[in-house]
């Protein structure tokens, strides 16, 4: 063992990928095992993906994921049915609706995985669906070229998804122990008066993210989608930080 530690940059890089709920102990363990910078990075490369996987496995409920997927699929389907019915008759048309739905669900899972344990329950229920809606709208733009870029799938998906999350709240705030006292879990689920301030912020952030995504989906050609997505995720991450401080 050595008293030297990894560089701040290497640690910061590893910390970005680690879910906040297990960041502290994982970074500490990697620090303690540090012998040289290449060895540290190799250790991190072997460890971080499994930490992310484990966190996802702990918080993802497969039944809820299926319900969310169906909700997002129906959102895209109903919008196309109302506005661009010709798309329904196309070969593999119905399969193509599954792509934005799947992307939105992946966003929800990532949002839960990377949620800070102290995040307010209302923000927790709105931010994920907001990101899902934004990315689904952008994804509709690339997978359904005939689709005009209207808000339909995003709005409906956002409403359904956040509704589902109200009934089945994500368990990201739950303490890292299955046998934690029930009181703690109940405390996490209960909505208090202070949460309404968080609710206002969450709603404002959701609306902002949503408007940006809609503008991107309407205006940007598909080749600009990747930088647009990066910008969107940056806005979302900044919103998450503001929410965390609140």
């Amino acid at each position, binding site marked *: 063992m050595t008293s030297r530690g990894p560089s701040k940059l290497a640690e910061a890089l590893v910390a970005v990928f680690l879910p906040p709920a297990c960041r502290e102990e994982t970074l*500490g363990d990697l620090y303690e095992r540090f012998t040289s910078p290449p060895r540290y990075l190799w250790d991190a490369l072997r460890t971080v993906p499994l930490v992310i996987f484990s966190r996802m496995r702990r918080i993802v409920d497969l039944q809820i994921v299926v319900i969310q997927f169906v909700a997002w699929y129906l959102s895209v389907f109903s919008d196309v049915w109302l506005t661009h019915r010709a798309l329904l008759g196309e070969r593999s048309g119905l399969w193509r609706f599954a792509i934005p739905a799947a992307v939105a669900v992946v966003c929800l899972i990532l949002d839960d995985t990377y949620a800070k344990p102290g995040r307010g329950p209302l923000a927790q229920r709105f931010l994920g669906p907001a990101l899902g809606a934004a990315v689904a709208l952008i994804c509709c733009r690339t997978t359904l070229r005939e689709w005009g870029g209207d808000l339909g799938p995003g709005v409906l998906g956002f409403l359904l998804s956040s509704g589902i999350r109200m009934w089945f709240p994500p368990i990201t705030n739950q303490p890292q122990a299955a046998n934690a006292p029930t009181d703690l879990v109940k405390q996490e689920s209960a909505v208090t008066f202070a949460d309404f301030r968080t609710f206002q912020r969450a709603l404002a952030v959701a609306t902002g993210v949503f408007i940006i995504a809609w503008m991107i989906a309407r205006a940007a050609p598909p080749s600009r989608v990747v930088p647009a997505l990066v910008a969107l995720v940056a806005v979302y991450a900044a919103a998450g930080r503001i929410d965390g401080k609140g």
Partner: protein
Amino acid sequence: MARPPDSLGQFEQLVLTAVLTLREDAYGVTIHAKVQELAQPKSVSLGAVYVTLDRLEDKGLVASWLSDPTPERGGRAKRCYRLEALGARALQESAVTAKRIWDEIAEVWGKELAREWGKRWGKEAG
């Protein structure tokens, strides 16, 4: 009311044994080192130990808590683990089953061969 534990996989048995033997000093790095020692000659990654610890915690076989930050870890806390009653029972059942398997093997292939095996894998045959 605690439900009876599910049967443990081999890696889970190794991790539980490590938590049991390390007692108060059971956290990521030490558990990994102990599991590595028990699993020889196989190589074990730290990530695999984390995944298994999380699963054991979900099953209620171990409990964890964060310790105070220490300077040798860059001012970061450790997640310490301890064996729960359910985990002790599951490990006991696994050990009894392993002993039975070992006895049966020794019965059929002879105690000498069993002892030879024990030496070969760095363990004393029972």
